[in-house]
């Protein structure tokens, strides 16, 4: 017992360092978003502004069509999520539970697409969208992500863990394949589905590159683009306003995280629970 004390101290210190490293930029962002412009420039930096300036948020929000951006971001991320669920769930079920001609080949093909970054194929996709006349619309932001190889892979693994007997029992209970997916597979894979939803949500909520390439007008742009625009003000960057914009971007993610936390943890400790 005695000898464990120093180890505990080292452990604790290590954790604190890591937490500080990760938390400091975030705290800085939060505090900056409430500062006056003057306070953002002082050195050493002020952690607690004299006055919490909520106007920064209003200024940021009013500096452009933020309601539009926000709405676009919501539509895009949820549109992607819904489409992804519609494609990856049946695909993962088929890959996990059926043997069909070329199943391994097609699964391999799916896995290969994991290795291709979107930046590599944006040109052909751009041309395709252009030929469909979908450029500068939300469709150009949603359709290219309608499926996810990562999601198929993740879900297939968790579908594979469902014992075969359960499916047989369901078939004897006269359940259709759709019903088996809906009533047995999805509830059992719920933690994994939520985790994937979160990954997808964060990726596309924060995505800057794709909307930048595919859209040109404000009517189809999303929050990250709107916020980057805050930097393009004359006479230097208003850091406090920019950070307030970032807060607007981040808060929805925090809220989602807050509610999904337990499920995420469960997704990673799910193995072994039968």
């Amino acid at each position, binding site marked *: 017992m005695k000898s464990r004390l120093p180890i505990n101290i080292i452990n604790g210190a290590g954790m604190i360092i890591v937490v500080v490293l990760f938390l400091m930029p975030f705290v800085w962002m939060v505090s900056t978003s409430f500062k006056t412009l003057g306070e953002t420039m002082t050195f050493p930096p002020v952690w607690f502004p004299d006055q919490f300036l909520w106007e920064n948020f209003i200024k940021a929000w009013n500096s452009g069509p933020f309601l539009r951006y926000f709405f676009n971001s919501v539509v895009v991320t949820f549109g992607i999520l819904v489409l992804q669920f519609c494609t990856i769930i049946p695909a993962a079920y088929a890959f996990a539970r059926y043997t069909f001609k070329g199943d391994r080949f097609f699964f391999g093909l799916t896995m290969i697409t994991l290795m291709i970054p979107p930046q590599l194929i944006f040109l052909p996709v751009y041309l395709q969208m252009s030929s469909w006349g979908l450029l500068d619309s939300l469709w150009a932001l949603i359709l290219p992500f309608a499926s996810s190889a990562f999601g198929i892979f993740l879900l297939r693994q968790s579908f594979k863990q469902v014992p075969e*007997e359960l499916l*047989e*029992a369901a*078939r004897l209970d*006269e*359940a259709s394949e759709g019903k088996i997916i809906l009533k047995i597979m999805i*509830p059992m894979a719920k933690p994994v589905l939520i985790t994937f939803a979160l990954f997808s949500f964060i990726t596309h909520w924060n995505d800057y590159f794709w909307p930048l390439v595919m859209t040109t007008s404000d009517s189809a742009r999303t929050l990250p683009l709107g916020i980057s625009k805050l930097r393009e003000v004359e006479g230097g960057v208003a850091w406090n306003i920019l950070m307030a914009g970032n807060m607007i971007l981040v808060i929805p993610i925090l809220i989602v995280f807050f509610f999904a936390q337990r499920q995420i943890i469960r997704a990673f400790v799910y193995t072994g629970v*039968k």
Partner: protein
Amino acid sequence: MAQITLKNVSKRFDDEYVVNNMNLTVKDGSFTVLVGPSGCGKSTTLRMIAGLEQVSEGEIWVDDECVNDVSPGKRDVAMVFQNYALYPTMTVKGNIEFGLTNKKVPKKERESLINDIASIVGLENHLYKKPQTLSGGQRQRVALARAMVKKPKVFILDEPLSNLDAKLRSQMRTELIQLHQRLGTTFIYVTHDQVEAMSMGDEIVLLNKGEIQQNDSPMNVYHYPVNVFSAEFIGTPAMNVFLMEKIMPYTSNIDKDAHYVGFRPEHAAILTTQPYEDSHCITLQGQLLTRETLGSETIYQIKHRAGNFTVKSFLPPLEENNKNVFVSIPYEKLYFFDENKEQDRDHHWKQASSLTVEGM
């Protein structure tokens, strides 16, 4: 309620036959037990009847309908799995209800059916619990309730008691027998445990290597095993079987045609002193090797020049080991098998009848 008929049914995995040209009739309302060592094809047969496995050759009939191409759900069979296979994300009630919802049974009817079944299996207080929170016996009941609630023509049970401890198992055994009597539905039960087969079934189908060895009532299988496999599988301890030529030197009263001779351990009497010469009995002298006292009975392992054998006695146990003992077996309790290990029925009967004449 239904009669099930298997006509020349075979199941192949690649080129290997797991079930080979099986012909079997499961009588309407019977409690039929498929029993055999592991890998004998009993589970495969069961799964083919349930529709979870396609037949490679042959036909399966439920009453007067060939169900080869009927999906499992439409066959009107309900199955209880070895590991229960309860839906973990549903409550007990959800588990029982699932099949009914899929059959589009109206809500009101569902409720009353579920309540009836729950009271039959004693789950009224657990309806809203998840299966994970229940004990093994309770899960077993949920699995039974889920099968029963659909009022199937045929019940299929795949080693349903093998995950329970000994005490609970014998309790569930009695409950299953009562359940069968109460429902009057055809039960098909798979087990590797011959005690379960003997105690529950009114019809035993003994399988080995994908073929039916014997299909008869438990008592007939016990008394008239048709071959060595059947004789050795049913009964604890197993029947002692010897090559005829090894036993011949110790007796003069047996016809020489048979190839194998056997007797059940419980049919032999064990004595410490040489018995009087008796024309009705064969007497073997050997050494006591081991002794298992089980309370009501004692099982002895005896060393003999013809080979070791076991004797079961209901008398107070003999004390000393390594002692010379005399084992006598009445001729009428001997079983004879030919060189194919099949019972030589004529031979056996001739022997038995001649003995009765002698005895009179």
